[in-house]
């Protein structure tokens, strides 16, 4: 737990360098060092999915990745995905369908849903439910989220 490591990686398309303790999680570093607070920490043991980030193209749990593991990687957070417009159709569908209430799980839901739609442009409702079953939402009961993902898939097609 001692010693500071210097890491260099790309965060939302920009090169960054950080000095981190080995024990610092990627989620904590992104939130507290980079100030990107859209990565929410819900359980810190990899179950809830609120801290999801995109690491070298794959959605991972920011709480289960150490910051030092980001060295040399390409990282995208909800802020980057939002600013680039890559998840705009999903975001619009979520707002329109009221597929979020408190908004805490939403960044993770959106990144996970975007990953689903990138590999499966026309998923069934069951497929959507399955794909989102690693992201806990306590507000909606999920149906609106499933509807929103299905609607975004339709728009994208």
């Amino acid at each position, binding site marked *: *737990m001692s010693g500071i490591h210097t890491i260099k990686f790309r965060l939302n398309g920009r090169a960054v360098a950080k000095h981190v*303790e080995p*024990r*610092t999680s990627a989620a904590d570093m992104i*939130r507290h060092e980079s100030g*990107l*607070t*859209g*990565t*929410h*920490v*819900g*359980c*810190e*043991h990899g*179950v*809830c999915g*609120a801290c999801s980030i995109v690491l070298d193209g794959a959605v991972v749990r920011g709480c289960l990745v150490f910051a030092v593991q980001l060295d040399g990687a390409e990282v995208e*957070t*909800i*802020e980057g995905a*939002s600013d680039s417009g890559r998840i705009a159709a*999903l*975001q619009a569908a*979520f*707002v*329109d369908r*009221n597929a*979020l*209430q*408190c*908004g*805490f*799980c*939403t*960044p993770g839901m*959106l990144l996970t849903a975007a990953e689903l739609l990138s590999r499966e442009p026309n998923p069934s*409702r069951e497929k*959507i*439910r*399955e794909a*989102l*079953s*690693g*992201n*806990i*939402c*306590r*507000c*909606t*009961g*999920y*149906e*609106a*989220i*499933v509807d929103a993902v299905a609607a975004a898939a339709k728009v994208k097609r």
Partner: protein
Amino acid sequence: MTSATTKAIGSSHRRGDAKLFVGGRGTYIDDVAMPGVLHVAFLRSPHAHASIVAIRTADADALPGVVRVVTAADLAPLCKGWQTSQTYPGYVLRTQYPLATDRVVFVGQAVVAVVAESRALAEDAVELVEIDWELLPPACDLEGAMAPDAARAHPDLAGNLAYQAEVGDPENRALFDEAACVVEAAFRFNRQTVMPMETRGVVASYLPGDGSLSVYQSHTAPHQLRSLYATHLGLDEGRIRVICPHVGGSFGAKIHLYSDEVATVAISRLIGRPVKYIADRMEALLADIHAREQIVTAKLALDEEGRFVAWRAETRLAMGAFSTHPGSSVQEADEAVRLAMAPYRVRHVGGRLEVVFQNKNIVGQYRGVGHPIAAAIGEHLIEKAAAAMGFDPVALRLANYVADDAYPVKTRTGIDLDALSHQACLRRLGEIIDIPALRAENERLRGEGIHRGFGIACFIERTATNAPSNAHIRKATAQDGITLSVDPSGAVRCAISVTDQGQGTHTVVAQVIADELGVPFDRVRIVSGDSQATPYGSGVRASRGTAVGGELALHASRELRAVILEAAAQLLQTVAERLSMTDGMIAPADSEQGNGISLADLAEIVHFKPQLLPRGAQVSLSLSRHLGHDWPALVPTNGVQASLVEVDVRTGAVRLLRHWAVDDFGTIVNPLLVAEQVRGGIAQGIGQALFEELVYDAGGQVQNASLADYLVPLASDLPDMVIDHVETPWPHSVLGAKGAGEAGTTGAVGAVLNAVNDAIRPLGASITELPMTPERMLAALNRL
């Protein structure tokens, strides 16, 4: 002039904050930054019941980066402790302190706090604190809680009974002895928790220079917190400001005040520096309020025609080591007994509740508060009676309901009810579902070895707590307030005491203002959750956002509209009665174009060119109004839910196939938001029915304090849900809205319970312990 537009009330306006949240741009409690903030971590009790013999903090104190190690002795001069604000005659209470004093009474109780430069360092230091414990026998057995030789949750208690009450009619055995049919059951509702996605957290900054205190907290009621911190810490309430930023879910978890929160604020007072505490998930599962744990016996007597003759329910609630604060733990049991069978005409209704101390975490007020249990026990026995007597369960209910046109009524347990619509809701359900066809299909599938069940539960949910109601909680249920202002641009500012945790209170309030004032929805901005910026009030609890906040906004808007039209009349040289305002344009009601003035132009004149108006009283485009209920009780709502399930009799797994709800929320301001409140509520009720249980062992250790082991419903667990409504406006308000936040949870538990029992009844099995896990299902099916 703007053409007449659609009314905002009744429209599914989208939420403005949702657009922030989808970009990750919400500001939750851990996102609150403050220069120089220090971090707090707690050492929590590993024992259910033990004396604290010695605490050694020297090693922790010496760790670089640690600022202060704090024990109960440090905080004793600052905080004299507290008991619940919601008291009942004879309720035995024990005082809570920010940190445990000489004894711990549940696993997870905060004992020592470490303040350090980072949370990680604070946790490192917690590991270095040493405590000598002397173990005491834990009181964790609910059935045996009152046995003479039972361990006591606090050594100075005469017994573990904290409160008992008889409710309604006294027990009359003859009515049961002489009845044509008596059905009865013993239920067990196991302990669960609330589990909002964002854990609780506090950022507190006490400034010794001027004695002011700022608190940011993930909570639904900033004014309540302000009053409580003033009381408990002996501070001047006028110098305290509480801000609730975006809240990542509450459902009741964040209407309470917790010892770790008081400790955090007290620590800032102690050291004069800003401090932050964010609960981690394990702390949340151990120390956020727990809910529901009750054992209930109930019986229903019917005559030959199936008329309900007598009902009795007795419950015992496992309160935990203290009563919650400020709302009490008793309410969970009290509402369960009082509301059971409230939809029906029953000649004789009575019950008893016992609330017992245990060496477990505190049971508090989780979504529905007692009502899910009231509905589950009553509706289960009704379906059991229907099966026993060969009645159709729908017809049996219709034959026994209090008729929709018979209200108002007072139940035999003393609850005032008005404007309910059980008949209309059940009939509407029958229009949505072809129940006979569905039952026939289930019967056919049973022949193929597929065990499907269909169950119904109707319910009453009491909502919209307010100041003069009989559920008054000191420092918590207050008169509510609103301030409405028109800015020079014509924008409308609303500061209101009800708050928004994502359910859409802001949107609904803005819709009411848009219509009642006559301005575009987009021109209304709502501020809430800040004790300094908004008038005093109760925040959000008990589904009160629309019923109370909407009504308040309606009255204030009408008064401000009269002020605006009066000022406009002077400019337009007419009388106010001839004017109206639509979409921010003021014009004669009967008129040709050109005679009007926009609200923005009027506001510009009032603010910058008042000389254009007649001399005399100044026009004030800002006003404040306050509202307490003037009806006798909480606002009752009703509804009915239905569930279709399939039971795998080999594995005990229950698969949900479909769920329906018909609710009566009175006037619906925003149908989209209401439907999603119901769906989310149903999901939590399903969680209680099938998944969620915090398991304590006999020694008071929590066995599953992680999200890997405490199961909440996932997307793949839940079915699609059909949501419909009957609208009986609340006759005692102008808006006519009732609370919609908890009904989903309240009805779902009984509906799923009944559906599962419908599936296994032909196998001679029944289940009345929740959650209905595969293991319990297999035991019920005699297959373990």
